[in-house]
């Protein structure tokens, strides 16, 4: 080495404004230059033999990014520019642009590391805020704008390099996903996605390098809490800093998707329901028209007995149609009703229900036994309709000549209350135990002993589901048992 070179290197080391630190192969500090002493406030004796990781604001970042690049790098990566926050001796932080180099002998054996640190705080602003500065080649006002974008705009933004390493992340990103900057910087977006999304995104990001952008691609992130965050990702390629970066905007569509799913579900239900309704309303309508025609025909013939007969049936069909339309309206209104749950005493609800059914109970001579009842969390007016339906069914579906016996009981589990309405009725064949809860599905025809609109149990199911509960039926010792599970009032 020429003699001048040695002198030059010494002058450079001592006089350069950039902070230089030299470490051995185990990353323990062996030397620092005067600029380093000024910038970080340490003397060599403070640091000699200490690991370089104590210089970083966050040791974790160093292990995730710095160590990775320097250790795993091939020859091409013997030197890298990285952005870190550093901790001065007095504990304050500053953002730095770091040129890191691996020192290797001819055999490729690493014998040390050199770091050249540029204090960017004058350009980037307060490093005690999250995030790190962008490279310095743009002016201060643009920088302030970029900072404002990442720190204040309510957008979920990040910027990552060709390896996917996140260099910058917005405050909204961190707030939404529940992470701190140090948990995110230096990692990749794929670390925060579902496996499926990460796989797609690893391929998808190539599109950015190839075409310069991506537009609203759906992915699912996982927040720190474990909750999925559904997003639509748009990205654009940026090369203004001399390095290819993907600037990524994530639009949070979790809520929108949830609403869409509910709407889709609701629409499907409405379609099914409209179909079933149109279908079922047609039958009594057709009957009314046929009876009217027969009345006209038999009237011409002077057959008054037949006319009276048809008229009675016409009226019955009209009443059936009426009941169905009322039921449908009821069902539709319930579907739209808002559930306003509050703690309710089941005993009081059942008492009101029995009063409402007073005439029916009296007519049939039914005996209704109500056991001890706990409190539940429910919307009282909606739940009363469930109870009215269940109790009136229990009283109605008995064999001719049988006195209805209804037993209402309840059991309390940790956070659930299970209400059981048991009857001594005609029971429900196994095949039909689920479908009786579908709207307009009936087990008994209009000419049977058990007329009905086919809405009652569908209504019950709709209401109970809206409470987050469940409803089902099982055969009892004689008759049926209807079970309703509702949230209890005991805290979980």
């Amino acid at each position, binding site marked *: 080495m020429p003699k001048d070179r040695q002198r030059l290197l010494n002058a450079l080391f001592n006089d350069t404004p950039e902070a230089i630190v030299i470490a051995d192969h185990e990353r323990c500090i062996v030397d620092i230059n005067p600029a380093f002493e000024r910038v970080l406030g340490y003397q060599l004796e403070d640091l000699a033999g200490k690991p370089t990781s104590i210089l970083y604001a966050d040791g974790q970042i160093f292990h995730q990014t710095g160590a990775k690049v320097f250790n795993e790098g091939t020859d091409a990566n013997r030197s890298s520019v990285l952005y870190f926050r550093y901790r001065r001796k007095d504990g304050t932080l500053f953002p730095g642009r770091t040129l890191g180099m691996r020192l290797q002998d001819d055999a490729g054996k690493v014998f040390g590391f050199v770091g050249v640190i540029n204090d960017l705080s004058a350009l980037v602003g307060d490093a005690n805020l999250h995030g790190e500065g962008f490279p310095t080649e743009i002016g201060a006002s643009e920088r302030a704008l970029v900072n404002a974008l990442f720190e204040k705009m309510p957008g979920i933004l990040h910027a990552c390099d060709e390896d996917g390493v996140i260099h910058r992340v917005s405050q909204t990103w961190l707030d939404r996903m529940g992470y701190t900057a140090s948990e995110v910087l230096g990692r990749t977006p794929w670390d925060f996605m579902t496996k499926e999304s990460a796989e797609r995104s690893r391929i998808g990001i190539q599109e950015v390098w190839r075409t310069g952008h991506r537009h609203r691609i759906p992915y699912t992130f996982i927040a720190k809490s474990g909750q999925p965050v559904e997003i639509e990702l748009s990205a654009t390629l940026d090369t203004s800093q001399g390095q290819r970066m993907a600037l990524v905007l994530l639009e949070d569509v979790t809520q929108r998707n949830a609403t869409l799913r509910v709407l889709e579900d609701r629409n499907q239900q409405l379609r099914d329901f409209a179909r079933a309704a149109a*279908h079922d309303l047609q039958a009594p309508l057709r009957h009314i028209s046929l009876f009217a025609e027969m009345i006209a025909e038999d009237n011409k013939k002077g057959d008054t007995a037949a006319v009276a007969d048809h008229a009675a049936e016409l009226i019955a069909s009209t009443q059936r149609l009426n009941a169905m339309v009322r039921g449908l309206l009821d069902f539709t209104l319930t579907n739209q009703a808002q559930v306003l749950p509050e703690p309710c005493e089941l005993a009081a609800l059942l008492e009101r229900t029995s009063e409402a059914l007073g005439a029916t109970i009296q007519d049939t001579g039914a005996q209704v036994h109500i056991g001890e009842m706990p409190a539940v969390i429910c919307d009282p007016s909606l739940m009363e309709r469930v109870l009215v339906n269940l109790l009136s069914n229990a009283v109605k579906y008995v064999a001719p000549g049988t006195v209805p016996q209804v037993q209402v009981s309840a059991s309390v589990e940790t956070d659930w209350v299970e209400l059981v309405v048991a009857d001594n009725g005609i029971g429900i064949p196994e095949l039909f135990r689920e479908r009786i809860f579908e709207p307009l599905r009936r087990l008994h025809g209009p*000419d049977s002993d058990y007329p009905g609109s086919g809405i009652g149990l569908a209504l019950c199911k709709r209401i109970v589901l809206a409470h987050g509960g469940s409803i089902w039926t099982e055969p009892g010792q004689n008759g049926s048992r209807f079970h309703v599970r509702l949230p209890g009032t005991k805290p979980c």
Partner: protein
Amino acid sequence: MVHKVQSVMVVDDEQLDLRMMQRSFAAFEDCMTLEQVQGSDGALGAIQQSRPDLLLLDIAMPGTSGFELLSQLRGQDDADRPVVIMLSSSEDPNDIERAYELGAAGYIVKPTTLDGYRELASSVSCFWGRQVVRPN
């Protein structure tokens, strides 16, 4: 040996619909007999016992629906099973498609007038009772 459709069975839960069928098919007694079964409960047994040539089967019945009966019939390995025509009060495209998928030979929307019933009985009797021949 071939034979023509002579025995028809109608399965429907509605008394009125059965009565209208009875009334309208009465005019074609010379070529067809009509047996009525109310509701789907005993229908399969009645079909096996009477072995009708032609079955007019209502779709919307409480309990077991016409479609379920149709699939049960199709599941039986019986060369002698009846020709099935589905009856419905609506022209629901899904129902029509399903009927043919399950092997129905036809789909008839129930008439809404007395004349409509007469025409139904007349056309079914003329076509199935006078034109169509079946294996013996």
